[in-house]
């Protein structure tokens, strides 16, 4: 059977966590594979430490709406556990949640971690990844977004080699150390999702 050539993704996180870098890699890998892409981003005031999301749509056919319709997302990819839940109404019944378990606490009423993780694990088809631990293992705690991209790559309709190519394009200008850390972060994330 030919793989499905359409995928709607909600990328979630907090302003400054690097979800637009994740989007950049997915966009360009998809463009290389000849897919249509629409990717809606959040700019401006909301970026200041607030909840941010990006709607990423890939398809072999023309895409109409820039926004993913609620109930149609195939995946929620979140670099923060509370943010993974914020967009649950976008997920289709058989969709998956791939989320980091590392909280970004900048609000006074952040939920209890155990309650939050239990809630996440209770959602069918959820992969929870300790992105902080794996990022440190990869050599830089700033690669958590790439760890999560690696974890999500298991479900993406894109070829892994194309994702890796654009990780190189994105991080090579920032030096070998940063590039190596991100390549390793991707691999560790990927393996964590396979478990």
């Amino acid at each position: 059977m030919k793989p499905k050539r359409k995928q709607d993704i909600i990328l979630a996180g907090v302003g400054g966590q690097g979800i637009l870098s994740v989007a950049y890699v997915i966009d360009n890998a998809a463009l290389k594979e000849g897919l249509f892409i629409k990717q809606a981003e959040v700019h401006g005031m909301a970026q200041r430490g607030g909840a941010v999301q990006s709607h990423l749509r890939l398809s072999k056919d023309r895409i109409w709406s820039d926004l993913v319709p609620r109930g149609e997302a195939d995946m929620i990819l979140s670099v923060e556990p509370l943010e993974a839940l914020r967009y649950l109404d976008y997920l289709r019944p058989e969709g998956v949640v791939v989320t980091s378990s590392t909280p970004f606490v900048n609000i006074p009423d952040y939920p209890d971690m155990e309650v939050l993780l239990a809630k996440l694990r209770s959602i069918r088809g959820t992969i929870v990844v300790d992105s902080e631990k794996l990022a440190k293992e990869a050599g830089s705690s700033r690669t958590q977004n790439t760890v999560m991209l690696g974890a999500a790559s298991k479900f993406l309709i894109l070829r892994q080699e194309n994702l890796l190519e654009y990780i190189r394009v994105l991080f090579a200008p920032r030096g070998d150390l940063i590039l190596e850390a991100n390549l390793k972060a991707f691999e560790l994330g990927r393996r964590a999702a396979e478990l």
Partner: protein
Amino acid sequence: MNKEMLLGDEAVALGAIHAGLSAAYSYPGTPASEIMEYLVKVAQKSRGFIASWSVNEKVAYEEALGVSFAGKRALVSMKHVGLNVAADPFMSSSLTGANGGFVLAVADDPSMHSSQNEQDSRFFAQFAQIFCFEPSDHQEAYDMTRQAFDLSEDMNIPVMIRMVTRLSHSRSGITSGEPRRPNDLHLGARQCWTLLPANARTRFRRILDLQAELIQFSNASAFNRLEINPKNTRLGIIAAGIAYNYVLENLHGAKEKPSILKISTYPIAEDKVKTLVGHAETILVAEEGYPLIERSLKGLFGVAGKNLIGKLSGHLPLSGELSPEVVRTAVDLKPLPQRQTGDFKLAGRPPQLCQGCPHADTFNALKKALEGYERSNVFSDIGCYTLGYYPPYNAVNTCVCMGASVGMAKGGAEAGIHPSIAVIGDSTFGHSGITALLGAAAFNTNMVLIILDNCTVAMTGGQPSFASGERLLKIIEGVGVPKEHIQVIEPLPKYLEKNAQVIKEEIAHPGISVIVAVRECLEEARKKRKR
């Protein structure tokens, strides 16, 4: 095929470059900032045109108008509320007309993602009786911008491109065409551009007389696509701009597809609307922003024998942006099944000042200085510091429009508020605060103006500020604030007591005082280190 991934804003910018742009001007404002950001980036490499941030939108508009007068092609871009600031030259530019192609790109922000109000710039286009394009996707944003320059030169009128947040900040692939070279210098005719009453009457008559031609242009435009389904006379849909995407998202696979008219230009293509309305019993109008098309159709008495539905009938919401879901309900489809978080309490995460932000230290000092006063108020303005409204600061009580804090503090002081404090950023002060301070200084109003000089336009991504550093101090002195009541503080936690004391002393002075709190934006400092 040369496919490029661009933001909607960037597609407008590229369209302008390829149309033979000579100069572009703008003031930063979400969601329009990325138009100029892109132009600045390209201009640095190619040097083929000028791309420049301006002091405010009115100035930007006038700079662009000067380019058009000189016979060259000009783009001016801004957010919706920026056009309020530029409304004066905008309204009169419909009389002067354009000499070199003149295109105004305005980005509206329905749902107020990063704005103080929701307004629909199509009404401004209608108000000035100029032509307006409303793209529904990235390719159209590029193509329409190119066509806007042609139309502007053919008919000698300013042309508007109306964008909305979801298109401005969405990324997609576009195919671009061959670039065209810029125009040579050829000055406009003085009787067209000198709006003395005698000339202006002639020019106003001209724009009135052009209307029929503009409607014909819309009737003939392929962007206004009419698809009649002879088998479905039940429903017809008029969908404008990105609302068209939401309609097609829900109906592109439908068996009994309704007839659909896509509206992409204004004035409205009357003939096509007549055909669609004649064909269907129920007409749904889907448009982003205010119900402009729907109201035009409805008039005072509705359309005889037709069921007209949309925002005015309650089938679509009057406030906030449209979405695939709300349009889905309006076209009578069942909602898709959705996952729910159940009883889990989802804590909100509003935007907030960054850790260590200089504004936070200024607010802490200000709050300390105001302890014990019962009739005090802090008037604030547009920028990151508006976030001082939220806990733990709860430091500011107003935010209306660019520069409003200064004038409001003067009015508040005159109404009996004491201390009457205004808090404004350096760029916002340069944009619209200077003239208000001139008034407050002339009257020696008993108020304190605090200018937060973080050396940049932080909220919109770090564009250059014109009223910062030494120049800012000279401006303050230049508009007549006594030198002994201009204070400079450095907002840092270790200076909390000292800074609060400075503010207290200036509150005690029974006249105008200005305190400048200088410390660079952390985000900008970080970006500079990266570069």
